[in-house]
């Protein structure tokens, strides 16, 4: 069990003015069986939050609208979270999590992943947790961590073809491989001690438990992690989603700090 302090800063800069900007943010951790969110503060600039809600995956969503012109947009979230309260999240029955057994556009395997899957020997392994562990280890050992090699919209198949990527790609490939085994699994966005950026990992359903696997670091998710959101793939967990009027280039900067208190 740990008490963690975190800061999550996101800044979007536009090459010229935009207006009529509508946004949805999934940037705040929520309570789970593993973590309890304490004091938290959220500020958005320009400050125009119009409401909050919880989406169908249980993620906190903040939405808002900035009518006037602006050239940058962002948020700062900071707070404290108690982590490691449990080893797993309690999950619903198998028939309730069926949607997590099916591939999405992002995770659909192609030739590369199918070929890759054949190389993982799962035949004598029983249990989803054990299979997922094997998949994680194999993936970790056969995929290279490298920034700048993939983009946000890169699919699992494309990433594996490139042979390198970041935590998002590790997670998507692992989801694809688990779903090929009919194991329900979901994508998680969050933060981790010692990382300067946001992180992503995978939760696998096993006997009414969601168990966290971090294929990027080849380890089980423990109390150094803070979960923000989960879904079928990264698209359900977009930290910032927005539409606005203006034909501009945008650059995003994210910085994350997580410390033990």
């Amino acid at each position, binding site marked *: 069990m740990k008490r963690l302090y975190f800061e999550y800063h996101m800044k979007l800069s536009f090459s010229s003015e935009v207006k009529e900007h*509508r946004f*949805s943010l999934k940037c705040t951790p929520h309570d789970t069986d593993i973590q309890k969110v304490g004091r938290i503060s959220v500020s958005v600039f320009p400050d125009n939050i*119009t*409401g909050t*809600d919880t*989406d*169908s*995956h249980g993620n906190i*969503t903040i*939405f808002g*609208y900035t009518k006037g012109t602006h050239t940058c947009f962002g948020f700062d979230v900071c707070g404290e979270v108690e982590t490691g309260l449990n080893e797993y999240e309690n999950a619903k*029955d198998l*028939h*309730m999590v*069926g*949607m997590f*057994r*099916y591939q999405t556009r992002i995770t659909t395997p192609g030739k590369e992943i199918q070929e890759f899957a054949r190389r993982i020997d799962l035949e004598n392994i029983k249990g989803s947790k054990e299979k997922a562990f094997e998949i994680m280890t194999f993936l970790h050992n056969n995929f290279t961590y490298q920034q700048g090699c993939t983009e946000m919209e890169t699919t699992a198949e494309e990433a594996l073809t490139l042979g390198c990527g970041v935590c998002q790609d590790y997670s998507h490939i692992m989801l694809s491989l688990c779903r090929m085994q009919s194991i329900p699994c979901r994508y998680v966005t969050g933060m981790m001690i010692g990382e300067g950026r946001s992180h992503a990992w995978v939760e696998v359903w096993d006997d009414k438990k969601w168990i966290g696997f971090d294929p990027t670091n080849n380890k089980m998710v423990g109390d150094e992690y803070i979960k923000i959101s989960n*879904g*079928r793939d990264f698209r*359900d967990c977009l930290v910032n*989603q927005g*539409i606005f009027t203006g034909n501009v280039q945008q650059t995003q900067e994210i910085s994350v700090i997580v410390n033990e208190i």
Partner: protein
Amino acid sequence: MISYMEMCGKRDRVEDMEVYAGTDVVNEQLARYGVKFGIYKNNEFKEQLFPFDMIPRVIDSVEFAYLEKGLKQRVKALNLFIADIYGNKRIIKDEVIPEEFIYAGSGYLPQCEGIVPPKGVYSHISGIDLVQSKDGTWYILEDNLRIPSGASYPMIARSITRRSDPSLFTGKHIEDNRNYADMLRHTMDYVSCGGHTVILTPGRYNAAYFEHSYLAEKTGAHLVSGHELIVENDHLYFIDYSGRKERVGAVYRRISDEYLDPMSFNEGSVIGIPHIFDIYRKGNVALINAPGNGVADDKGIYYFVPKMIKYYLGEEPILNNAPTYLPFYKDDMKYVLEHFDDLVLKDVAEAGGYGVVFGNKLTREEKARFIAMLKKEPRRFIAQEVIDFVDIEIMEKGEFVPRKADLRAFVLMAEEPMVWKSGLTRFSRNPDSFIVNSSQGGGFKDTWVLSQ
């Protein structure tokens, strides 16, 4: 079964029939009122008149009472099914429907998980397509629960034929179908969360724009496009010319789920309303029909509707499906391969008469290619016996000729399901074709339901 000919007495010469003289007059009137549908050909938008045939389809009161009972039962079960899928999923747990038919299809929307729409109504307006075989049996061909269109055509055709040929109706005890607007208004008001009721159109270049504008006029709802509505402080507003905001409580949206809200669905949508889905989730606006309904009208799910009726209502289905096989099941695959030439195969992802293949119309190579595809993706197809539809007479070049026709019945759901006592009868103009969709050149008839 009764035909107009029997009802009014068939004459040898077409010219002697009461309906003959009226055809041109009525089509001229339909043109006058702009009764059209739009189609895209070579990327160009064209408006076409929807050819109208004066000979009505006639359904007697006893037969319609039977259809009505069956349709209500079916729509009730479909609503319970959608509620179940986005809720407790009992039907999956009890293994009545294999989960892949839900999750691997395109109709299921995970965003709708856990949402209960206002008053618990999912499919407010259902368009159920039926055909009648030569032995008189009615079969359900397809359920349309997303944004079924077509009610406006028989509505306006009835107004015009009554005006142009009143004697045709005198003393015949035909149910008045012009009450559709009242039924629709009631259906929309029943679920409204307070404020104005609007009809949301993607714009005049949509195939069904005539219908959108006509229903708006007849129901007194306001016709709007997405940019005229705005979400603010958890509510939906219409902005009028002076900048004043008027609250909107119900949206009869004629745009599909994926374009409804760029924040929750297709980001590229410019016809949707950002954040409308968020306030819908909070119960602050009714969306008609509810998003996510597609899970129940997928062609793959169609096979299971009779099972749903038994499962949720504990009743035997009153109306039958056309005999259907799911190649997904081994036994059915075997049957399909053995009887390939006698079957019609439908791609579950397609609509509007596209993706329909008649086994006996394929060349050898095409057949081999198709079977390979079927074996590779068995879930993608359903196979049906070719029903020998009853022919309906139409007038063409001064002669009566038989053509295939179907019936789209409209079931509206408020406190209870209501069946509109009419329907859209579409016919194929091509004598060899079974495909009646307007986008494929079909025409339409009025549907008379007799009151006694």
